[in-house]
């Protein structure tokens, strides 16, 4: 399933003192099965863009097409679009409300009219794909789980709607290193096993570099850069001027190559960086 965005424009508080152009002529295409990262500092328009992709916000001008179907005209069945494009907000655990994990995960599919055995199966699958033990967890209260588990239950609640695109806004914010790793491997699993297109918004450049096929950089409501992680992150001066980081591995490599003649590396991950260092040591000998 693909998402195509054409010349999107959105203004907050039009005509009032707080008027801000949140999106300014944004166009982009996301193809099936991709894992796309969106980066940009707070207020660059990322969240506004995400909310256009499943029809939560209506643009002032421009169009959004989901699988060729325009969702920005008035006739679209928004519930169906929201099923196909799952959106997981920041700190999604704050949306939990049911007494048991199973009931909470079932909220989405029930809204879509799924019932009976099929509902049970869907819920079970969703809980399992986020890496939780269905039997162990199904009847517990979501409020008694740990932070990382709560978050996974909330994500399962969106996956249970069987979306073909999953948008995650800062899915690892505030988690400890272990829970952070678990969420990342869960996202990869969802992308690979379920063949769900992933759109990942994160401030963690290491994660973006490691996970994504393509990166989109936003600033002041515009897309300013777009390309493969290596193409993006090697423009570190530009990123820095926008207040963005580079992946830690690249940052270290940059510092080393500044001090040592003949050392070059464009490694994005620590593994690549380690290879480059080993290579360099070998050559030196």
């Amino acid at each position, binding site marked *: 399933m693909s998402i195509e965005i054409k010349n999107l424009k959105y203004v907050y508080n039009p005509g009032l003192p707080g008027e801000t152009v949140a999106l300014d002529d944004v166009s982009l295409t996301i193809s099936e099965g991709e894992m796309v990262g969106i980066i940009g500092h707070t207020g660059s328009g990322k969240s506004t863009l995400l909310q256009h992709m499943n029809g939560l916000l209506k643009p002032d001008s421009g169009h959004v097409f989901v699988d060729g179907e325009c969702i920005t005209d008035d006739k679209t069945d928004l519930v169906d679009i929201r099923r196909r494009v799952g959106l997981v907000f920041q700190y999604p655990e704050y949306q939990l409300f049911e007494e048991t994990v199973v009931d909470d995960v079932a909220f989405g599919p029930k809204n879509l009219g799924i019932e009976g055995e099929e509902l049970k199966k869907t819920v079970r699958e969703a809980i399992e794909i986020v890496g939780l033990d269905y039997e162990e967890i199904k009847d517990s209260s979501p409020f008694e789980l740990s932070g990382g588990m709560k978050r996974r239950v909330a994500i399962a609640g969106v996956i249970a709607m069987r979306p073909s695109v999953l948008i995650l806004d800062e899915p690892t914010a505030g988690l*400890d290193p272990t829970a952070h790793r678990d969420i990342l491997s869960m996202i990869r699993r969802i992308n690979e096993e379920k063949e769900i297109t992933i759109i990942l918004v994160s401030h963690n450049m290491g994660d973006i570099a490691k996970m994504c096929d393509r990166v989109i950089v936003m600033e002041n409501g515009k897309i300013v850069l777009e390309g493969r992680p290596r193409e993006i992150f090697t423009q570190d001066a530009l990123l820095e001027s926008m207040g*963005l980081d580079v992946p*830690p*591995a690249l940052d*270290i490599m940059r510092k*080393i190559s500044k001090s040592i003649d003949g050392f070059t590396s464009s490694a994005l991950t620590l593994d690549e960086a380690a290879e480059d*260092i*080993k290579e360099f040591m070998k050559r030196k000998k």
Partner: protein
Amino acid sequence: MKQENRKTFISVRNLIVDFTHVNEEGLEELKTRAIDDVSFDIEKGSFVSIIGMNGSGKSTLAKCLNGLIMPKSGEVYVDGLSTYDEEHLWDIRSRVGMVFQNPDNQIVSSLVEDDVAFGPENLGVDPVEIRKRVDSALKQVDMYDCRDKGAHMLSGGQKQRIAIAGALAMRPECIIFDEPTAMLDPKGRKQVMNIIKELNQEGITTILITHYMHEAEQAERIIVLKDGKLYSDGKPSELFGNRRLIEGAGLEMPPLIDLRDRSGLPESATTIEDIICLLK
């Protein structure tokens, strides 16, 4: 601050904290032992990080240090005053300021300067003196220009700086930062970390609880908690020199150290300069 001859500022002895809940028969029962027999000292002017997984007891421990939580047993002394001593509780809390994780939920007043004044107002400080303290605290966190703005108009990083100013206005000797950067974006994170380091340079005893290893690494000492117990306590280089220790606590190496190990470089290299030296 100079390392030598520093006095102990906070001392924790055999601290035990239990979380209990009331069961169906109306009796209290033990749910978890949040802090389990922890002892350590913190020296005046030092910079200490506390790390550990979620649920390892970091926040609970922090809240014991200024008497927000009363332990089941054990002692906490702040500059010689016991936190059990109710008469000195306000004294202790004004000396040990605290900045919490959520920038929104610790700001009391709608306007920036009124919020910063909240602490000294509670302490009954003279209005003229409060004004002075508020202005200087706001300047210290570089938010003086925003003093008459509405708190809800600020970014997360700015709100967090207001919270730091709020603690500073009490003229504390120590500030505990409980995951102050967890909810911020990279820009806000950097600003807050820079302020934390500056304040420590100015002599404020700094206790930083964090999930980010590259932040913890900047302290002179790291305390690791695991399941409420003191798991490790030492210099960052000692801790990050020991991969087994780090992984045992469910944590991760800072990127630089991780890279060193993956490249097969010796453990003696702990900074980027060390690694550059090795490669030269």
